[in-house]
């Protein structure tokens, strides 16, 4: 079980298109702040930032797309679904806001079949509850 109430003192890292924040010792919160086409190199930047704030640790990723109409390039979806992520990430939760992003999340989950457990949620609380169902060492 995880404790999502334990707050981190580490500040967030601002990239040009998103904010990456260590929410607690187990969760990284990625908030997309700009409408744009997200390419594989953008996601690589996010992963590298996660590595820097969670050095050598497994973590949960909370991808928040509530305020933007971000688009993901197909190559980005393929890369995100790849097995390499399973080496560092327990699970991915998406909070898509718009209808088109919900459908894109469905596409990712059903067609790309990501190696890391992933689900889309309507709100952050439901995502947090899902994270708590994972038994971690």
């Amino acid at each position, binding site marked *: 079980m995880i404790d999502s109430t334990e707050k981190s003192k580490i500040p967030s890292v601002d990239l040009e298109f998103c904010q990456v924040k260590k929410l607690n010792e187990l969760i990284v919160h990625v908030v997309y702040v700009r409408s744009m086409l997200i390419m594989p190199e953008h996601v690589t930047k996010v992963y590298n930032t996660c590595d820097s704030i969670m050095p050598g640790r497994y973590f949960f990723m909370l991808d928040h797309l509530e305020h933007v109409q971000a*688009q993901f390039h197909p190559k980005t979806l393929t890369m995100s679904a790849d097995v390499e992520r399973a080496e560092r990430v327990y699970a991915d939760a998406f909070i898509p806001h718009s209808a088109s992003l919900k459908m894109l999340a469905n596409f990712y989950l059903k*067609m790309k079949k990501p190696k890391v457990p992933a689900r889309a949620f309507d709100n952050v609380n439901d995502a947090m509850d899902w994270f708590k169902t994972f038994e971690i060492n």
Partner: protein
Amino acid sequence: MHFERILLLDDNETTIFVNTDVVEELFPNTPIISFTSSEKFIEEALKTSEWFDTPTLLLLDLNMPVKFGYEVLEELEEEIPDMDEFHVIILTSSNLMRDLERSSRFPNVIGYVEKPLTLKKLNDRLNGEI
């Protein structure tokens, strides 16, 4: 991307005719089954479990006279517990966000296309472009 079959549901026969051409071009060896009645489609779906057990794509018209596309999905969701291999692309001439929002809550809906359907639009959606 491989589908065992592609289903078309649209109340307009001309649209079915045109969309069949587009689908055949993208999936030349895949069986295409078309319906102009949502009731007949649901009746057939409920007795054809392979539609939900093996990769199947449904191109679903949103605005139909008897049932809206999302009402068809609601009925399927109530009757069929596991639709993991059933994928839906919504076809719509309406860009009403309310209708799209209602359709997007179904996990089987992987995209939408504004009519008319073209090869490029279908190909883009099947590659995850929105």
